[in-house]
């Protein structure tokens, strides 16, 4: 009798361990989604011939010529950008999942991060759709192609607002962790404060067609893009470490 009970307990333990492995694997996929998301996002730029970005000072004829010569690249690239938004949703979810493990953290912070991250997914989808519409009939009148190009670039570059709500709540969670060592190192908290601040000069872009504050300029695209890439890489790495720690602790 006791042997049989011991056997079923062992099977139960094996089952629990397998299930734990599955849970951890799901979280790791979500963490890797960050790197996948940013690769697809910037891969879209390369395929579309948008590195360096089209300047807002180009006239309608020049914009139209770019769409006529890069039609296929833009369509394929923007398909990738659409896909990147799904990975961002998974990445947001694992951030909230790991934030929940910080003791004493209010659920308000976890929910803010989740809501703002879901909101941010839309900002990956909408510009891609505008770029697709622009390249769908590149033979439209050049003024219309220029209009779609303006809509797409401005939508892609300007909306740092959901990222700020998301990153600030993540920073708050990291910095309020009372333990030593904390779940995430403190510098990741500061990264989440400085990254969205570095995106914020984009609010000036409606006033400029050239220079560092135009949508193709240093402060609006180049610096934010590099910080965005670094942020994704750093957060993915730190989430992987946090998931490893969760596996050790359970």
């Amino acid at each position: 009798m006791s042997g049989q009970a011991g056997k079923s307990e062992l099977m139960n333990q094996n089952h629990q361990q397998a299930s734990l492995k599955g849970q951890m694997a799901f979280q790791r996929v979500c963490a890797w989604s960050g790197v996948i998301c940013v690769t697809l996002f910037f891969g879209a730029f390369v395929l579309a011939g948008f590195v360096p970005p089209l300047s807002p000072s180009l006239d309608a004829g020049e914009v139209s010529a770019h769409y006529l010569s890069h039609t296929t690249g833009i369509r394929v690239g923007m398909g990738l950008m659409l896909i990147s938004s799904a990975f961002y949703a998974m990445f947001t979810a694992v951030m909230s999942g790991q934030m929940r493990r910080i003791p004493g953290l209010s659920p308000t912070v976890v929910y803010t991060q989740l809501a703002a991250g879901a909101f941010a997914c839309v900002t990956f989808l909408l510009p891609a759709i505008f770029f697709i519409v622009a390249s769908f009939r590149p033979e439209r009148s050049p003024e219309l192609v220029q209009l779609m190009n303006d809509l797409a670039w401005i939508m892609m570059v300007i909306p740092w607002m959901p990222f700020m709500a998301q990153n600030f709540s993540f920073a708050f969670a990291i910095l309020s962790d009372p333990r030593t060592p904390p779940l995430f190192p403190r510098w990741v908290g500061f990264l989440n404060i400085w990254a969205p601040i570095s995106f914020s000069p984009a609010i000036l872009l409606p006033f400029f067609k050239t220079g560092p504050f135009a949508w193709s300029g240093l402060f609006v695209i180049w610096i934010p893009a590099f910080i965005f890439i670094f942020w994704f890489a750093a957060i993915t790495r730190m989430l992987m470490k946090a998931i490893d720690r969760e596996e050790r602790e359970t």
Partner: protein
Amino acid sequence: MNPRSLERWCVWSGVAAITCFTFGFVFAGFIPPPSPSWSIERVVAYYQQHATGIRAGMVLMMISGMFVPPLVALISVQMRRIPGAHPILVYAQLSAGTLGAVFFITGALVFIVAAYRPDRPADITYMLNDMGWIVTVIPWSPAFMQNVIIGAAILTDKSAQPVFPRWLAYFNFWVAIGFLPGGLLPFFKAGPFAWSGAFVFWLAGSVFIAWFIVMTVMLLGAIRRQERESAAT
């Protein structure tokens, strides 16, 4: 930080959202709004004269979107305290509120594009003006569902010391109904159901602002009661 003071910051985030949103409209010169019956020439002239104000105002309106998620998160967290409120209501409020936040920035984006090059062919500016107004005014559906869910959660609260007073449920239902006339705007270019009309702009705009004010006061009250309860135990 004390969880209650964090929650108070989230309430003030809602106040920041509605303030930036309203002032965005004021700076853009959109109060009163241009009527859909305006001629092409008048619309183009309007964007040419107000280009800077529209750019600045609509940037402010986009910023307002940033302040929405903390408020939505807080409403879900307070809803969780209602005994018997199903978690489905808590999550549905969170996702409907998130969807609603998107419309704080999409309409503003279209207005920014219109004001970015006001010297475009007149037809294009005219089209962007239509698109900006319709995108800003018409999306009543996420807000409608969000308010109905908040109301439903409040009505399930049968405790002696409810988290929110029952009238707040009916207030949320009425606000939801106040947004509905927006659905009729595609059929009108003048009158009360046009995007600049009494039901679509003025009524919906007023209930929108009233909702933020009333929810601010009620959430602060709920946080205060929660503080007293935890002090008593």
